[in-house]
């Protein structure tokens, strides 16, 4: 799968990369540091990703703002977007589901727990039929 990870925290990016390589998963990860960067990637003529992993707390454009733009876009709205966040704020959760997400994953404290969760998410989406551009 082509995974677009939108995440401002370097360590978080490393965690995903490490998890994917450690588990020897055949996924390619495209990184974006924030919402704007992600949008420009998505609007480029390149192939679209299969899923998006989205952090909510980011500088400048927040995850929710990004989500709104994607879900309002005729083409991009089909992309399954999974929120990956530390926010346990119920208001955020409800808002995200309202706009349209494919999952809401709380980042666990321990890396082992993270690996486990991400492995589950990725294998789940891996067996799904995905929207191909």
């Amino acid at each position, binding site marked *: 799968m082509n995974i677009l990870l939108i995440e401002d925290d370097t360590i978080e990016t*490393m965690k995903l990369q490490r998890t994917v390589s450690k588990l020897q998963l055949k996924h390619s990860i495209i990184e974006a540091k924030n919402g704007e960067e992600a949008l420009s990637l998505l609007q480029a003529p390149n192939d679209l990703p299969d899923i998006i992993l989205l952090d909510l707390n980011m500088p400048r454009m927040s995850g929710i703002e990004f989500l709104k733009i994607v879900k309002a876009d005729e083409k991009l709205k089909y992309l399954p977007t999974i929120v990956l966040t*530390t926010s*346990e704020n*119920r208001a*955020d959760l409800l808002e995200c589901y309202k706009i349209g997400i494919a999952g809401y994953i709380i980042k666990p*404290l321990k890396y082992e727990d993270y690996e486990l969760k991400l492995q589950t998410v990725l294998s789940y989406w891996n067996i799904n039929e995905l929207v191909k551009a």
Partner: protein
Amino acid sequence: MSFKMAEKEVLLLRKALERQKKARIQAEKILEEKSKELYDVTHHLKEANSKLENLLNEKTSELDGVFINIIDPYVVMDLSFNVINMNQSAKEFLGYDHTIERLNLRQLVHPDYIQYTWESFQSLLEVGTLKNYRAKIFSKDSTEKWVQINSSLIYDSERKPIAAQGIIRDITNETEIRQLLDEQKRQLDIIVGNSPLGIALTVKGKIIKVNPAFEKLLGYSEYELKQLHVADITGPERNQESIQLIEQMNEGRLDTFSIVKNYIRKDGGSLFAKTTVSAVKNKDGKVDYQVALIEDITKEREAEEQLKASENRLASLISNLQTGVLLEDEHRTISLTNQMFCDLFHIPVAPETLKGADCSNAAQEHMKYFKDPTGFVARIEEVLKARKVVLKDELEMVDGRILERDYIPIFNKGIYKGHLWTYQDVTLRKNYKRNLEAQKEKYGSIIANMNLGLIEVDLEDTIQMVNHSFCKMSGFAENELVGQKASEVLNLIERDLLEEKNKKRLQGKSDSYEVRVAHKNGRMRHWLVSGAPRYDEAGQAVGSIGIHLDITEQKQLELQKEKLLRELEASNQGLREYAHIVSHDLKSPLRSISALASWLVEDYKEVLDDSGLFNLQQMQEKVESMDRLISGILKYSSISQDTSEHTQVDLNLVVNEIRETIFIPEHVKVVIMNPLPTLLADRTKIYQLFQNLIGNAVVHIEADPGLVEISSEETKKYWQFNIKDNGIGIAKEYHEKIFKIFQSIGNGERSTGIGLSIVKKIIDLHEGTIWLDSTVGQGTTFHFTLKK
């Protein structure tokens, strides 16, 4: 007859004639002798007759003289109406003198009487006398005269009528009187015929003549009435009296009388009539007729009866009146009084018995009942003297009663006929009035001095009254307000509101509202207005009354409070956001540290010694406790009073879920002792509450088997829950402290000191309380209540 026969007869007759001739000659000779003798006798007689005739003429002359000298006109005429002789009186009456001119009486007769005169004259010729010839004649001066003539024929010596003599009576006056009488009779008939009074002529009670009005009144025709006796049409009432009167009249002792009696009509109906009977007497003083005049007074009688009834009613009204009435006549004797009067003055007799009593000393007798006896007497004398209406004299009585007295003099055609006193007990009314005045004064002073602004307006919004406080509140002086339109003089911001409220007043609605008004000095003030409609005695809305309280300061405080609340809400919201952001910002590095530490262990396991590994292990644990702390703070700060998410929460399900979710050591059992209720609450908070308490309990149990018992009981206003454990217990000194944030008493690594603070906060939000019983080493029971 045959001719032969006739010839024979003539022969016979001739022979007879011859015989006769011879006989006559013989007789003539005899007659001649005898005639000689007769002539002598006749001559002798002639002489004697002539003597007698002269005698007669003399006598006749004498008689003529008598006639001529009689007073009434006397006329002798021949049978052709030519006057032969007339006396002086006749000459004067007729204006003619037969000795001077020829006078024919026929020419004097009025043309209307010529026929009658002719007939009368024939009768005279036949009978010889004529009596009561009446005719109209003209005298010489052409005046019409009525004459009555009695006449007789005059004969000559051979009894042949040769003349007529007559005595004329001038009946001109008499006739005129009779005509006048006739006219009068006719007029009288008209009057009688058209009279509305029934008129009847009776003889000894028998009806002989009635007029149409009489017929109409009684319903009988005149013919029918003539068959009747007065008694037949007389009703029973006062009949006896009328019979007696009639008898007196018949006896000549009574000429006329009047009586009201009733008559029976033909149709059986009855009528009341005023009857006047007069006797008509003849020359000898005997009663010929009785004339009865009947006037129908049935209606008058009915009216009179009604009047009587109304008088009776009036009398009973007066006797039952709540006003004491005393009517005195001009001699100061009592004409009328009533029970109330007797009651008022303790007169122990029936009011009727007082009639006729002398009142001249009444004032003296009753003065003892009055507080000012001399004044009472003096006033009565003064009033009586003045004879002028006096109303509402107030009299105070010794027993505390207050009477109101009116004096009304009575005049009939300007002549003083007495007077009327009325007394009314007004004690109650007076006392009520006094009370009312006292109340009015009391409330008046309250109104004047109260700190509330009072204003009264009429229906046109014109100010009728303001109190001192209102002037102070508005900044206007009283004279700047009274008489002005409230809406014009007072500078209200919500002008429309006022109009709307005034309309409501007209509908009788009272309410309270707030207005903004500019004080005379221009400063904005807030008033709380309580308005109510004003009514007059008849219950008609005549305006409204408003009580005003200046609430500017309270209003400002309120506005300030509202502002603060809004700010607080915003700041709370900000704080919640802040907590989330902070927690995220704190959690992210923790996650990074945790990941990096894991990776160190993973990647450099071989390089690190035991101490290095231990330190990394410690680091992970510190990171974990830090993470819990942050989560706790976040939860605590997230608990808000928001009630929008209230749902039916079945606590049995909640506890079951918690049992499945949280970590419960193997040796500990969580038991629900009795079925728990279902509450209307925010599920998340209730979940949190139970989870924290159960979680606390289970982790602090060392005993085996460990037991956590959850029970509930219901009170009127609350649900009470008890969570009992057989754990280590909490020392008394910590019982309060444990609910404060960050106050952890546990020595366990996992305790953050936030859990019970969250519990307390949730219970506070549900207006409940929490307390605990605990014995160290034996266990703890948390009790808490939640308001229903």
